[in-house]
C-alpha cells in the first residue's frame, strides 16, 4: 500500500512537470491561432493526465474526455449546453456539415468546432504518448527535443516570443529527464526506494539544475551570431517584394468578418451557401462598415453597441427606404453553410423564422445598430438557422427626388459617413473633384463616380491584386497604381471618392444575387455560393436616403428608378440604358469568368492547391517531421520490426511452402540485430556464429534443414515442428 502510494506520488510529480511543458506547447499555438479559452484547454490536459495517473478504466476515461470536449464545443461555439436539445442539434448539424466537407475534400469548409474537436483529439493522443514514454520507456528525451525545436521555430518564424518559454522548457526538461534517469537507475539496481532516499537522491540534481540556471541567467550573453533568417528566406523565395503587410498571401473567397486589411488575391470557392426562392433577384446585405483606415474597414461604435430586438414577423426598423405596400414580395432563404447572420434584401420589412424545435423558447431577431447586421437569438444565444423567410418591398426611387437636393442632411449622418483618414493622399480628393466636375446634384455626382471605373481603364481580377504597403493607401494604390482589383477595391474606392466630394457614403458587405437553378412559375430558385460574396456602396442622397451603388466592373446596379420628370429624350435614353431596372444580370464576360472559376473550384486539385498555399509552412513542417520520423523508424527498425514481424508470423504455419520465407526473414531479423552475413559466407558458418553468440544450437539446426531444403534433391524428411521450435526460440532470443 505504502509502495503504491509512493509510486503514485512519483508519477504525479512527473505529470506535474509534463503539464507545465505541455503548457509551453499550447500557449504559442493559442497565441498564433488567436484561440481563446486556454484555461479550459489546459483543464482538459489536466483531466487527461489525472485520468491516466489514477489508471481510470479506459471506458470511463473516454466518456469523461468526450463529454468534456462536447461540452466545450457546444458551450463555446453554440452558447448552449450540450445536455439540451439545442446542444444535441448543434452537434449533429456540425457533424453533418463537416462530414459533407470532408467527403467533398473541402478542407477549408471544416467548421471551427470540428477543428477544435480535432485539436482536442491531438492533445489526447499527446497525453497518451507522454504517458507511454514515462511509464514504459522511461525516457522523454525526444519529446523534449521536439518541444525545444517547436518553440525555437515559432520564435524564429512568427511573432511569438519564446525566449522565456525555452528557458522554462529547458529547466523542466532537465528536471524530468533526471527524475526518469533516477527511476531507471533504481529499477536497474533492483533496490528498494522510499521517499527519504528518493529525496536524498533528487536533492543534488535539483540543486544542480538551480545553480546551472542561475549561472546561465547571470552570465553575459552574446547577440545572435546568425542574421534573422526570415528576410533571407523571403528574398530567396521571391516573396515580400512589393507585397508587404499582414494581408499578403492568397485567401479564399467568402464572407469574412475582418476587413481591416484589404487586398491580395483570392481563389474561387463554389460552395453553395444559400438557396433563395423569390420572384426577384436582388443583392443581399449582411452589414455595413463606416470607418476607412487607409488599409481597410473598421466599424465605429456610434450607437454604443446598441441592439435592436424584434419579434419574428415584426416590422423591422432600419436605415433604408422601403418600397410601396403593393410591391411586397416574399423570399425563402435556405442556409447551407454555418453562417449565423440573416441576409437582408433591399426594402426588408420583416423576417419570419419557422423552426419547430424552437417552440416554447424566446426567439428574437437582433440587429446590431452600428452595422445593421442581423442575427437570431434563441434564449439570448446566437443560433444558426436552417431557413427563414423575408418580406420585402424593393424601394423605388423617384428621379425627381433624387435630383432635388433641398434637404439638409442630418448631422448624425454627415458626422459618421464623411470620415476619411488623415493620411489620404491629396490626389484622391483631386481626382474626386475632377470626376464630379460639371455635375450639379449629389445623385449625378455619385453616378459619375459609379461610372468612372468603367471608363478609365480599370480591370476586374481576383488574382494579382496588390496589398498596400505600410505607407500606402489602399484606395490610392488602386486608383493610381494598379487599377486592377475586385469588388472590395471598387467599392472602397467609390466610398472614399464620394466622401471626398462631401456625399455621405458607407461600405456594404453581403452577397450578389446568385445563379438561377430552377424556375417555378413566377418564383425562381437562386443558388448563392461563396463566389457571390460581394461588397458595394450606399450613398446618402438628400430627400431620398440611402441609395445603393455598384461601382464594380462586371456587376450592374439593382436600383429601381422611376423617371417621373420630363428630361431631354436623349438624356433619358442614356439614363435608361445605364440604369437597369431589372435585377442585375452579370455581364457576359464576368459570367464566363465566374463559371470558369467555379469549375476550377470544383476540382479537387484546386482545393488541395489552395489549401496548400494556406498551410504551406505547416505542410513543410509536417513533411520534414514525416521524413525525420521515417528515418528514425528505419534506423530503429531493429527495435520495433521484429515484434511486428513475429506477431505476423506467429499465426502462420511452417511448412514446405513457407519455410523459405520463414528462414530468410529470420536472417533479416538477425541482421537487424547486428549479425551481418557477408554474401560469401555460407549459411552453416553464419549459423555457427549466431549459435556461438546465443550459446545455443537452434540456428545450426534450422540452417541444416534449410540447406537440405534448398540444396538437396528431396527435403521430405524435414521435421517442421522442430523447425518451429527452433524458430520460436531464436525469435524469443532476438526480440527479447
Amino acid at each position, binding site marked *: 500500500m505504502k509502495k503504491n502510494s509512493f509510486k503514485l506520488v512519483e508519477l504525479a510529480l512527473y505529470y506535474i512537470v509534463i503539464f507545465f511543458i505541455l503548457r509551453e506547447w499550447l500557449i504559442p499555438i493559442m497565441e498564433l491561432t488567436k484561440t481563446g479559452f486556454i484555461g479550459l484547454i489546459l483543464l482538459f490536459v489536466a483531466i487527461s493526465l489525472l485520468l491516466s495517473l489514477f489508471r481510470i478504466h479506459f471506458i470511463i476515461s473516454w466518456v469523461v474526455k468526450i463529454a468534456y470536449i462536447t461540452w466545450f464545443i457546444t458551450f463555446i461555439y453554440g452558447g448552449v449546453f450540450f445536455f439540451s436539445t439545442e446542444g444535441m442539434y448543434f452537434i449533429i448539424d456540425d457533424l453533418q456539415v463537416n462530414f459533407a466537407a470532408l467527403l467533398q475534400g473541402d478542407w477549408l469548409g471544416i467548421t471551427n468546432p470540428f477543428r477544435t474537436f480535432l485539436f482536442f483529439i491531438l492533445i489526447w493522443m499527446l497525453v497518451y504518448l507522454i504517458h507511454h514514454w514515462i511509464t514504459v520507456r522511461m525516457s522523454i528525451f525526444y519529446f523534449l527535443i521536439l518541444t525545444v525545436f517547436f518553440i525555437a521555430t515559432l520564435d524564429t518564424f512568427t511573432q511569438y516570443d519564446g525566449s522565456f518559454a525555452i528557458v522554462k522548457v529547458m529547466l523542466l526538461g532537465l528536471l524530468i529527464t533526471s527524475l526518469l534517469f533516477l527511476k531507471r537507475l533504481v529499477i536497474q539496481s533492483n533496490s528498494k526506494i522510499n521517499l527519504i532516499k528518493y529525496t536524498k537522491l533528487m536533492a543534488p540534481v535539483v540543486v544542480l539544475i538551480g545553480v546551472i540556471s542561475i549561472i546561465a541567467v547571470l552570465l553575459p550573453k552574446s547577440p545572435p551570431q546568425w542574421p534573422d533568417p526570415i528576410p533571407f528566406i523571403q528574398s530567396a523565395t521571391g516573396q515580400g517584394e512589393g507585397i508587404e503587410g499582414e494581408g499578403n498571401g492568397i485567401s479564399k473567397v467568402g464572407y469574412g468578418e475582418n476587413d481591416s486589411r484589404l487586398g491580395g488575391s483570392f481563389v474561387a470557392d463554389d460552395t453553395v451557401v444559400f438557396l433563395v426562392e423569390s420572384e426577384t433577384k436582388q443583392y443581399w446585405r449582411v452589414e455595413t462598415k463606416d470607418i476607412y483606415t487607409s488599409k481597410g474597414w473598421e466599424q465605429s461604435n456610434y450607437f454604443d453597441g446598441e441592439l435592436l430586438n424584434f419579434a419574428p414577423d415584426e416590422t423591422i426598423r432600419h436605415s433604408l427606404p422601403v418600397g410601396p405596400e403593393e410591391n411586397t414580395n416574399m423570399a425563402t432563404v435556405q442556409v447551407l453553410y454555418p453562417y449565423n447572420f440573416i441576409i437582408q434584401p433591399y426594402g426588408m420589412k420583416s423576417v419570419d423564422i419557422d423552426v419547430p424545435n424552437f417552440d416554447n423558447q424566446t426567439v428574437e431577431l437582433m440587429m446590431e445598430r452600428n452595422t445593421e447586421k442581423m442575427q437570431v437569438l434563441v434564449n439570448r444565444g446566437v443560433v444558426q438557422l436552417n431557413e427563414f423567410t423575408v418580406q420585402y418591398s424593393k424601394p423605388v426611387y423617384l428621379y425627381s427626388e433624387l435630383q432635388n437636393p433641398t434637404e439638409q442632411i442630418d448631422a448624425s449622418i454627415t458626422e459618421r459617413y464623411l470620415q476619411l483618414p488623415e493620411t489620404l493622399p491629396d490626389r484622391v480628393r483631386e481626382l474626386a473633384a475632377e470626376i464630379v466636375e460639371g455635375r450639379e446634384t449629389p445623385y449625378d455626382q455619385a453616378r459619375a463616380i459609379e461610372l468612372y471605373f468603367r471608363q478609365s481603364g480599370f480591370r476586374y481580377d481576383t488574382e494579382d491584386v496588390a496589398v498596400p504597403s505600410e505607407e500606402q493607401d489602399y484606395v490610392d494604390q488602386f486608383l493610381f497604381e494598379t487599377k486592377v482589383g475586385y469588388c472590395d477595391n471598387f467599392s472602397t474606392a467609390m466610398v472614399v471618392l464620394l466622401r471626398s466630394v462631401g456625399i455621405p457614403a458607407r461600405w456594404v458587405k453581403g452577397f450578389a444575387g446568385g445563379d438561377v437553378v430552377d424556375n417555378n412559375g413566377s418564383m425562381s430558385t437562386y443558388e448563392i455560393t461563396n463566389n457571390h460574396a460581394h461588397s458595394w456602396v450606399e450613398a446618402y442622397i438628400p430627400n431620398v436616403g440611402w441609395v445603393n451603388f455598384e461601382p464594380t466592373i462586371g456587376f450592374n446596379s439593382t436600383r429601381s428608378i422611376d423617371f417621373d420628370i420630363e428630361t431631354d429624350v436623349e438624356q433619358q435614353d442614356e439614363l435608361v440604358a445605364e440604369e437597369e431596372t431589372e435585377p442585375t444580370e452579370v455581364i457576359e464576360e464576368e459570367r464566363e469568368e465566374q463559371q470558369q472559376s467555379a469549375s476550377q473550384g470544383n476540382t479537387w486539385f484546386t482545393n488541395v492547391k489552395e489549401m496548400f498555399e494556406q498551410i504551406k509552412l505547416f505542410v513543410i513542417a509536417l513533411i520534414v517531421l514525416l521524413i525525420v520520423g521515417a528515418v528514425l523508424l528505419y534506423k530503429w527498425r531493429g527495435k520495433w520490426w521484429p515484434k511486428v514481424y513475429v506477431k505476423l508470423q506467429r499465426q502462420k504455419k511452417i511448412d514446405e511452402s513457407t519455410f*523459405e520465407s520463414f528462414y*530468410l526473414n529470420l*536472417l533479416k531479423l538477425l541482421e537487424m540485430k547486428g549479425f551481418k552475413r*557477408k*554474401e*560469401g*559466407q*555460407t*549459411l*552453416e*558458418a553464419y549459423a555457427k556464429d549466431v549459435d556461438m553468440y546465443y550459446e545455443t544450437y537452434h540456428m545450426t539446426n534450422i540452417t541444416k534443414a534449410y*540447406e*537440405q*531444403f*534448398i*540444396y*538437396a*534433391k528431396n527435403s521430405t524428411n524435414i521435421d517442421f515442428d522442430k523447425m518451429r521450435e527452433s524458430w520460436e526460440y531464436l525469435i524469443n532470443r532476438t526480440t527479447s
Partner: protein
Amino acid sequence: MHGQVEAIIENIEKVMIGKREVAELSIVALLSGGHVLLEDVPGVGKTMMVKALAKSVSADFKRIQFTPDLLPSDVIGVSIYNPKSLQFEFRPGPIMGNIILADEINRTSPKTQSALLESMEEASVTIDGETLQIKRPFFVMATQNPIEYEGTYPLPEAQLDRFLMKIQMGYPTAQEEVEVLRRTVNSEPIAHLNPVITLEELLALQEEVRNVFVEDSVKSYIVQLARATRNVSEIYLGVSPRASVALMKASQAYAKIQGRDYVKPDDVQYLAPYVFGHRIILKPEARYEGVTTEGIIHRIVEKSVIPIQRYAER
C-alpha cells in the same frame, strides 16, 4: 562422416599424425576419380601418406621413383620379344596398378612426365598401336619438392591441370612431432597397417559419389567462382571449365564423406583453393609482390554470392 571413409582416415591416422585434412582431401580425390599432387619439402611424410592410404585399401599399390634417366617405357610398360612363343609380349609397367605413388615427379624428363600424365588423363596406355585400359580404380598420387631447382623439370601448367588437387602437407605442430617420435621409437607403424576397405567397396563408393546431387544453384555458384578467377587483375590465366568440372566432382566426394547426398556451397568453398590453386597462373609482377593464388581464391570466395534461396526452376 561416412563410416568407411572414417575407417580409412583412422587407419591413416595410425601412421600420420595431425594430417587428417590431407587424408580427407586425398580420399576426396580418390573417390571422385581424380589425382593428387602432393607438394612440400622432403621429410614431412608425403610418401608415408600415400603408402598409408594405399595400405588401407586392399588395392594394387605401385610406386614409381622418378629420376632424370627414367624412360616412358619404365612407366607404362614395354613389349618384349618372347623367344619361346616367337611373339612380342607386353610387360605392363608400374602404371597398371590401382594406387600409384609417383614420387618426385618433377625430377624426371618432360617426356616421361607427359607419358604419365597422359595415361592419368585417359586412364589407358597405348603401346605399339594397342590401347590398354588401366584397371579401376586408378589413383595417382604424385609428390614434388618445390625448393630444388637444380636438375628438376617443373611441370608445365597444362600438365598440372590433370591433377584434381594440389595439396601442401605442411609441418606438424610441436606436439604432433613429439607424437611422431614416440610412435616410431621402436617400431615402424606402417608395417602393421591392414586394409579396411575392399576394392569392390571402393568402386561402389565411387559410384555413390557420382550420384551425389548438385542443385543447379550450386552449379552456378561453382561457375561463379571459376569465372571470377578469369577477371582478377593479378591473374594471368584463370581456371578452365575443366577446373569447374573438377571442383564439382570433388565437392560431390567431399559431400559424400561428410555423409550428405547433396552438395552445399560450403563444400565448394572448402575445396576451391585445392582444386583451383594450381590451375591459376599469376602475373609475374603479382608474384613479385607476394600475392599468392591462395590469397586470391580466398578473396574471390569471400566476395562471391552464396545462393540462399531455393532454385527457382524446380
